[in-house]
């Protein structure tokens, strides 16, 4: 029963949603709209699930005193602080909410700089990694290296100063031809894979989403 109910629901909703795509009838479109609304109602539970998983993971780290468990305490501190200043609990007399200056200050002066800093570190690591790893050891590596240099030069206006229109034109050709062909192949592959996987899930052949095993 624990497995059969989700399988039946999955089959029914999967088939109904496919059929509504092929029928412009008012009843069909009303069904489609209703199920899409249900989908939106379910979506916030995903956020709740993410929060619960985050709490479980970090609580376990603190309990077991695993390496760097102190950072998990910081996670709880940050999470609780942002929930308190970001939730407009009028019933309990909380003055806070997303528009409160305290929340805005924390977001603009703590979260934004920290996130941006983490992302900016990539520039340093990429430069260092490119210097160490980008070596023309084989034909394939040379091809990749030359392509990367052309695209990088074409990406920035200084490339045009050094190499005239050639940098932009060569970059554009690479993006419009080899890149586009490869991307389209990947998109087609992913789409065919997604269709076959969806059919397997709707028909109950693929059941791993139920929690593993048969």
């Amino acid at each position, binding site marked *: 029963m624990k497995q059969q109910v989700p399988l039946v629901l999955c089959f029914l909703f999967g088939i109904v949603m496919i059929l509504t795509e092929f029928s412009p009838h008012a009843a069909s479109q009303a069904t489609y709209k209703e199920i899409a*609304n249900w989908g*939106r109602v379910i*979506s916030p539970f995903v956020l709740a699930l993410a929060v619960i998983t985050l709490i479980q993971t970090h609580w376990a780290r603190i309990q077991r005193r695993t390496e760097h468990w102190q950072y998990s305490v910081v996670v709880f501190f940050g999470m609780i602080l942002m929930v308190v200043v970001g939730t407009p609990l009028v019933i309990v007399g909380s003055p806070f909410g*997303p528009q409160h200056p305290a929340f805005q200050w924390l977001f603009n002066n703590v979260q934004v700089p*920290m996130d941006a800093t983490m992302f900016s570190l990539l*520039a340093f690591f990429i430069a*260092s990694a490119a210097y160490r790893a980008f070596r023309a050891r084989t034909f394939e590596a040379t091809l990749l290296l030359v392509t990367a240099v052309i695209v990088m030069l074409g990406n*920035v206006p200084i490339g045009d100063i050094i190499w005239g229109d050639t940098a932009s034109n060569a970059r554009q050709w690479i993006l419009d031809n080899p890149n586009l062909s490869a991307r*389209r192949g990947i998109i087609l592959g992913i789409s065919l894979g997604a269709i076959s996987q969806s059919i397997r899930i709707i028909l109950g052949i693929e059941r791993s989403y139920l929690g593993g095993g048969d």
Partner: protein
Amino acid sequence: MFEKLMNIDRRIVFTLVALVVIIPMLAPFSIPLTVAEPTQNLYDYIDALPPGSTIMISFDYGPSSFVEPEPMAEAVMKHCFDKEVNVIGITLEIQAVPLADKVMQRVAVEKGAVYGEDYVLLGYRPGDTFVILGMGAEIASVFDSDYLEKPITEIPMLQNITNYDQISLLLVLAAGSTVEDWITYGHTKFDLQIAAGVTGVIVSQMYPYLQTKQLIGLMPGFRGAAEYEKLIDAFGSGTKGINTASLVHLLVIGLVVIGNIAFFVQRRREE
């Protein structure tokens, strides 16, 4: 010497990167920029919209990557307000709401645009694809209020807007995969006209959609922002960003060339 060069301390590389990022900030300079076709197409499309039209901007980026899409948002909104085109802001990324609010308010103050009449920020709703599909049927079924919780029935510029039929263009400013979601569900199902402004790392993924005209225009990274700023003759952080990026690109290319010269000399000696 070449062996030393091949195993250069990474802190030296880090210092060089820091210098080429900091120097253009202290001593700004300008590099001539040519406008690429995808950015020009987006500009021309917005420029041709009649006054009173409405475009939607989806701010699908977070604090880690806002530096690239934000100048694009700023430039496009300036153009829209100059042309009396209304702007609706939404986001599929929860952290983008305060970022979108900030940039919309900044441009509105500069251009004298009025909230609720010239622009509005609806905010965030969970459910990505369901949000896109739901708005195609009826925007009010997804957003019954704006991000300040004001009912949309009380917002003047939304009185005649029901769904995508009244939206002339959707501009997706993204650092992730939401452009594909908007194309798959917004364009294919509802024939919504879509353009994108994306961070540099995902630009190459957009080209198949440009070729099929599923994207009518594209602003690629800092370059796209700088190009749009050039088109509206309002130089800002996009232009500053592309100048800094130019030097960092040159540095990385220089490092790769030096590393390879050292590698070949060393290999020849070993042979």
